[in-house]
């Protein structure tokens, strides 16, 4: 593991193949879930013909549930990778909130985005600010989405299903009226969508303006530093 004082230079391996695969599968799943989820909340115009000839809403819900399973299993796979992976892979599950340099770095990054710093610092993994965003708007939001989504799915699966066994308690958490689950899940979608917007923007911006590669790092797993100067 690299220490903070070592000069970051050249090309380093940062994301394993598993992490990269997870990232892109996750991105696709979020897209599918957001689109189908939006239609579940606000259904498209009614289809003509007999009910027995159509299954549009059924398919939309099926795709949503299937993508939901993918993202949930992916989440646990990612958590496992965090457990066995390196420091950068663990960052979004277990941020260095207890370290002073973490907060110092976050402030510096914030000042960089506010055009108050001439240049950003170099990081092998996520910068502290993005780690904070990932932790709250992705990791924690994802846990809320999995719990509320699982609880709603359990409603359809029935009271004696394993889904109810796993997620039934969430109902009582939101006040014994499962309508609130829908509301929370809906707000959660927006939280994740806002995160995606900021995530994509900063990734593109930092790809062009920072001192290290961003997008290609999530493609190839290697991060290249553009200069040899110190942080």
């Amino acid at each position, binding site marked *: 593991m690299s220490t903070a004082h070592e000069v970051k230079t050249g090309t380093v391996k940062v994301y394993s193949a598993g992490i990269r695969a997870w990232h892109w599968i996750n991105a696709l799943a979020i897209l599918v879930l957001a689109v189908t989820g939006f239609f579940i*909340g606000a259904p498209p115009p009614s289809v003509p013909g007999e009910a027995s000839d159509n299954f549009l*809403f059924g398919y939309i819900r099926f795709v949503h549930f299937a993508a939901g399973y993918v993202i949930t299993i992916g989440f646990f796979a990612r958590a496992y990778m965090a457990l066995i992976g390196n420091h950068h892979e663990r960052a979004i599950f277990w941020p260095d909130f207890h370290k002073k340099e973490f907060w110092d770095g976050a402030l510096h990054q914030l000042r960089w985005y506010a055009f108050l710093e001439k240049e950003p610092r170099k990081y092998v993994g996520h910068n502290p600010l993005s780690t904070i965003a990932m932790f709250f708007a992705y990791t924690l939001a994802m846990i809320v989405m999995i719990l509320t989504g699982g609880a709603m799915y359990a409603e359809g699966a029935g009271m004696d299903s394993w889904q109810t066994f796993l997620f*039934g308690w969430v109902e009582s958490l939101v006040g014994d009226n499962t309508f609130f689950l829908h509301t929370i899940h809906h707000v959660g*979608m*927006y939280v994740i969508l806002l995160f995606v917007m900021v995530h994509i923007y900063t990734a593109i911006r930092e790809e062009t303006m920072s001192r290290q590669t961003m997008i290609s790092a999530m493609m190839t797993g290697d991060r290249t530093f553009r*200069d040899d*100067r110190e942080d």
Partner: protein
Amino acid sequence: MSQTQTFYDMIRRQGVTRRSFAKFCGLTAASLGLAPAYAQQISHALETRPRTPVVWMHGLECTCCTESFIRSAHPLVKDVVLSMLSLDYDDTIMAAAGHQAEEILQETLENHHGEYILAVEGNPPLNEDGMYCIDGGRPFVEKLQEMAEGAKAIIAWGSCASWGCVQAAKPNPTNATPIDRVIRGKPIIKVPGCPPIPEVMTAVVTYILTFDRLPELDRQGRPKMFYSQRIHDKCYRRPHFDAGQFVEQWDDENARKGYCLYKMGCRGPTTYNACSTIRWNEGVSFPIQSGHNCIGCSEDNFWDAGPFYERLQNINAFGVEANADKIGAATAGIVGGSIALHAALSAVKRARKSPAEDTKQKETENA
């Protein structure tokens, strides 16, 4: 009032034949979702077991539970009230009043301690020491706790007793409280609904009487046999939901065709009740069948989960009322705008620094 009489003795004396009695047992078994063999158990219980004393109390409520109960068809409420049970006390339909009625309550508490079933309609308000509901000269909550102490089991009739219902909706000025929060250490069976379905009410009573125990309850204390599925799961309009055919407006062609009311805010998908199977008024209809969406009256907090005619619930924060989509669209707009602005500023910054900075960087790289 003779308490040792059985249900069977009673109806035989009323001129009901053994054959009709057997039919009644069969029907009751069927309505409870039990196997045919249970009909014999029911008849055995009704023949041998002394009628169970029931005390029916009323707190803060509208009496719609009683109105519902007296309309039960299977079994007929006449049979339940006059024969199966010994309804010792029910201030709405009893003949006695005033001190006489209070005496009956005390008698039951003393003579049938640990044997009677306490049925509670409505709930106690706790603010101002319970002064918002005075029953027989003292706060209802006191009377309720006193009677609960000697009860074998307690039935919470309706959404008031189970959840709090309308009087507990925000801001809940009287602090109306569901009964399970003021009664401890007694089995409470919740039969929510505003009101509950009459057949569900009588069936629950019949079950307790027949088997001498509470039916299997779910996580929230409701009998599983009636509350384990959502209205949506057994709704006859469900095929339209799966097909993607929805009523868009109350007076449109789709409403005439009987499409799904999901878009109109139907709470069927989040409401646990038996309306879509047992239905109302002897199985004639239920809200969705008559073209109106389910408002989720048997769910906790349903008054505060409005508007009833919107798919999305209102969210109140900082005194502003909006729904998830409005909040989401607004924040997405703000964040999107900020990103565009920030991107523009970044481009300006990059364009400005270009020539000079680049040579400087090259110098350092060469050095």
